[in-house]
């Protein structure tokens, strides 16, 4: 990831792809607007009209899940117009000829018809992007589909064939996880103490948690400790999840509020907020660090999270590994590099920039890449190899196919449930958090679903009506917001409403995981975070909407 204060000052063109800074990561918006004031054109690719899109010079609004097609169409247009960077391609990429052949079918006409974006607009953005030092800043929007991994590959290939990689202001950031996973945190030292007898165990994919709970047989899963999460609220297929939870011998929830998980737990434990305990959080999007210190003591009978795990450890017979009196600060020192001076990052000092060996401000400036070919793999040898080992969709060249559950992907289902539901992050909540705060509720208001005027009129729905969003999996009850800016055939229901509000989008969603590797029910022996991917395709969902029955 190229750091924001550098790229925004040196770029000549910005494409923000599937990313809504006005809801999450608001501080980046200021940098984008500063670049805009400098005269840099800003393009936003998003099916939504977000507040960021409203500030863009050009907004491309593709139909949900067609981002791959859009990127491939741009690649084909640029290559056939000879606007690609031949020198960069030759020196730093692998598989250009294969890619050139594969994208030939993506004429502007076909791209426009699949994505719904006018052909001249696609061409204009492609030209603008290819002829400048350009930056693509990706979010997760286009990744949360069953074809999301290919969308991200296609966008990266667009950056590579134009040489917009590894230069200040010319790169493709895709929200890689940053210093937290590059060795700055020595997790192994904390999690696997040297002298302990630690056995390799099976792995459970978090994006397939519900199916894994139901499918696990040898042994079955009988105990779940839920903390810092919301498996009932945030995982798809709520009914299936509850069915699995009913069968557990033990369901514990460490929480600050009576969330859905807490309501379903056998034991609810009072958790501390982030202001009552130690913590460390290297950002994914910048390179500065401030240690989190407890600013007040634990309120009521709440307990810092690590104290709970240490106490549980001592009571379960692992006293040696959880010494009494070991403080959060002691644990932090164990987690951080030994040569890192934590005092510099701790009250009253800090923040500090993290050591460069864990996060380069301008990565890939050397032109070296950690792939089998040492180059940017337009034709992915890594995918090809991985595909020999595990089942899945490992096309080494970026390829477009419609999302599994979309109008194009499942026309039969779409006859019954013709509206494509997308579920974005709400600006005033962090997923399901903050909804209980009256101040926030006053702004956020009761649950709502956004729909286009055409779709509303066809169903006799007026702005402000109570409606039922439904399919064969479940339903959500909310207020209709009829808006001009929403694409016809697309409806928006924010993520994170508690199930108990009756408006939770996950009631409508199927328990499928996205990503190249097919992990079946989500129980694995081996897993590669970078290659196997995985997310939940929250934007793969078809629904119908009707007026709620009058009471």
């Amino acid at each position: 990831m190229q750091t924001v204060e550098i790229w925004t000052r040196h770029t000549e063109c910005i494409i923000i792809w599937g990313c809504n800074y006005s809801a999450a990561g608001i501080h980046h918006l200021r940098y984008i607007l500063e670049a805009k004031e400098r005269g840099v054109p800003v393009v936003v690719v998003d099916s939504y009209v977000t507040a960021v899109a409203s500030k863009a010079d050009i907004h491309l609004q593709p139909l949900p899940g067609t981002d791959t097609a859009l990127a491939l169409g741009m690649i084909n247009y640029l290559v056939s117009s000879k606007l690609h960077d031949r020198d960069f391609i030759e020196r730093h990429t692998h598989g250009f000829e294969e890619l050139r052949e594969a994208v030939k079918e993506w004429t502007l006409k076909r791209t426009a018809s699949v994505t719904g974006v006018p052909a001249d607009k696609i061409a204009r953005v492609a030209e603008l992007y290819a002829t400048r030092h350009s930056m693509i800043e990706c979010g997760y929007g286009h990744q949360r589909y069953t074809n999301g991994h290919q969308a991200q590959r296609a966008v990266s290939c667009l950056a590579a064939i134009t040489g917009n990689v590894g230069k200040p202001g010319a790169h493709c950031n895709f929200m890689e996880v940053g210093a937290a996973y590059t060795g700055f945190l020595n997790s192994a030292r904390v999690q696997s103490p040297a002298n302990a007898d630690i056995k390799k165990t099976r792995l459970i994919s978090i994006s397939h948690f519900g199916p894994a709970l139901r499918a696990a047989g040898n042994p079955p899963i009988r105990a779940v400790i839920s903390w810092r999460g919301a498996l009932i609220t945030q995982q798809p297929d709520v009914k299936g999840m509850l069915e699995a939870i009913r069968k557990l011998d033990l369901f514990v929830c460490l929480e600050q509020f009576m969330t859905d998980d807490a309501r379903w737990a056998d034991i609810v434990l009072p958790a501390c907020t982030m202001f009552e305990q130690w913590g460390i959080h290297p950002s994914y999007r910048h390179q500065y660090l401030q240690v989190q210190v407890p600013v007040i003591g634990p309120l009521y009978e709440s307990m810092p999270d690590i104290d709970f795990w240490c106490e549980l450890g001592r009571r379960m017979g692992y006293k040696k590994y959880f010494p009494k009196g070991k403080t959060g600060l002691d644990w932090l020192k164990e987690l951080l590099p030994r040569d890192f001076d934590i005092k510099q990052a701790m009250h009253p000092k800090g923040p500090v920039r993290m050591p460069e060996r864990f996060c380069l401000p301008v990565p890939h400036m050397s032109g070296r890449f950690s792939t089998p070919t040492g180059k940017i793999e337009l034709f992915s040898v890594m995918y090809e190899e991985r595909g020999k080992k595990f089942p899945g969709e490992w096309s080494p060249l970026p390829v477009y196919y419609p999302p599994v559950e979309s109008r194009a992907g499942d026309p039969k289902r779409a006859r019954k449930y013709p509206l494509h539901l997308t579920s974005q992050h709400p600006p005033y909540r962090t997923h399901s958090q903050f909804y209980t705060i009256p101040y926030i509720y006053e702004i956020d208001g009761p649950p709502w679903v956004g729909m286009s005027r055409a779709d509303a009129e066809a169903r006799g729905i007026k702005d402000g009506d109570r409606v039922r969003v439904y399919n064969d999996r479940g339903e959500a009850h909310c207020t209709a917001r009829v808006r001009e800016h929403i694409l016809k055939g697309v409806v928006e229901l924010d993520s994170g409403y508690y199930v108990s509000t009756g408006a939770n989008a996950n009631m409508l969603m199927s328990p499928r995981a996205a990503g190249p590797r097919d992990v079946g029910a989500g129980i694995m022996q081996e897993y590669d975070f970078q290659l196997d991917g995985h997310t939940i395709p929250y934007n793969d969902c078809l629904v119908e909407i009707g007026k709620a029955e009058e009471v």
Partner: protein
Amino acid sequence: MALKTKAAFPDERVRQIIEDETPRPAVSLARTPLPKKTTVNGTTVEGVKVIKTACSHNCYDTCGVLAYVKDGRLLKLEGDPDHPITRGTLCVKTYTYPRRVHSDDRVKYPLMKTGKRGEGKFKRISWDEALDHICKKLMRVREKYGSEALVEYCYSGNREFLGKNVSGRFLNLFGASKLVGSF
């Protein structure tokens, strides 16, 4: 539309840009003196302690935060002006955080369900009783099914990493199924 020059960024120039635009790593950036008083709802409050910390919510900005504390109460939060990226501002969520910390709706003590799962009926118990119950159940589960019958569900409610590493130590020692991946 000007065509870009391909050799616009030789290594030395990139190094110069990095040097010009970023401070040296691992050196404290604290410059602004921490205030000693503040105004809360129009009233001046003296004798506050202002503590530097960070927000670990799930938007990845990881804002630098100044926490205003008096008598064990979090009075208010402001952005840390010395943070080079978040530059002294927070989002509306974090500005409301003191109301969340001191909310009357918080889970205040350990609870045990009294009805069926999901019925929402609980009674207050002590931490000792809660931990005893959990330990007994975990031992029984491990005995009957094996250690992999336990799994944690943990994600980004608090995105900081210390907690997950300490839970990881316990779960590794216990031999629980390991939660991996993202969503």
